[in-house]
């Protein structure tokens, strides 16, 4: 997410203001210390014009049946 934020030219504080959360939350998400709620993840993706799966990487795969 940091790459997208920096590409947009926003500071953590600016992104926090746009999303209505604290800067601490943005910092924690960017450093992988906190997984945002689904509503916040959706807002983040919409703000960057992306899908949630493009913004957050998850390597989980379903087991083969």
């Amino acid at each position, binding site marked *: 997410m940091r790459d997208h934020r920096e590409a947009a030219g926003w*500071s*953590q*504080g600016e992104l*926090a203001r746009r999303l*209505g*959360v*604290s*800067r*601490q*939350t943005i*910092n*924690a998400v960017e*450093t992988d*210390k*906190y997984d*945002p*709620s689904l509503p*916040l993840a959706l807002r983040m993706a919409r703000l960057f014009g992306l899908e949630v799966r493009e913004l957050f990487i998850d390597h989980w795969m379903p087991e083969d049946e």
Partner: protein
Amino acid sequence: MDKMVAGHSVAAWKKSGIGALVGAIVGAGTVAGLMHVAGTDFIDAMGGSRVALAGVAILYLLMAAFVGFGLAAPRTGARLLNVADADELREERAGMGRSVIVMGAIGAALLALALARTPSFPTGPVPAQAAAAVLALVIAGGVVASWAWRRQYDELNRQLGIEGGYWAFGLSWIGLTLWGAADFLGLGPALTAIDVVTTLAAMMLVGAFVAIGRRGLMMR
């Protein structure tokens, strides 16, 4: 990239270490100074349970003072507090200001309780009714403030509150159950009512630190 990460990690450890060291020095100095002012006779008259409660109260007050200092002087405060930089202190001023009020109020109420004049501590400088009034005011104010400020906390704050509460309850339950059982069975020191208050207040702090530490948020 690895060097950058390692460099950041070293810097984070260094900053946390400096903050902890300054906190320990100021805390130890404050406690030693207060004990000197109070005098040995007064401390002896208080007894272990009251001294422990006063110690926890001073911890709350010192934390409130540290954060308050950080808000007043963001550049210096950013070197001591668990924030990314001085701008975070400026941007999060309102939220951290609320923390200062809450921690300061809890610390003051606990200190009033520790110094309350009771039959077991007739030289206590705070009338029992006054200590009760301060405590009732702080609890009532806390309930009202929690309601009024409920929308001011974002989801990370709320999550940390839930996790801190979980740890505080679990640790309190274990500690008080073991202590109470030991007292009941005649195997340990007596568990007094004020010990319960002290344990709950202390475990609230410990729970908050555990929740923050487990998420790796102690070092930023």
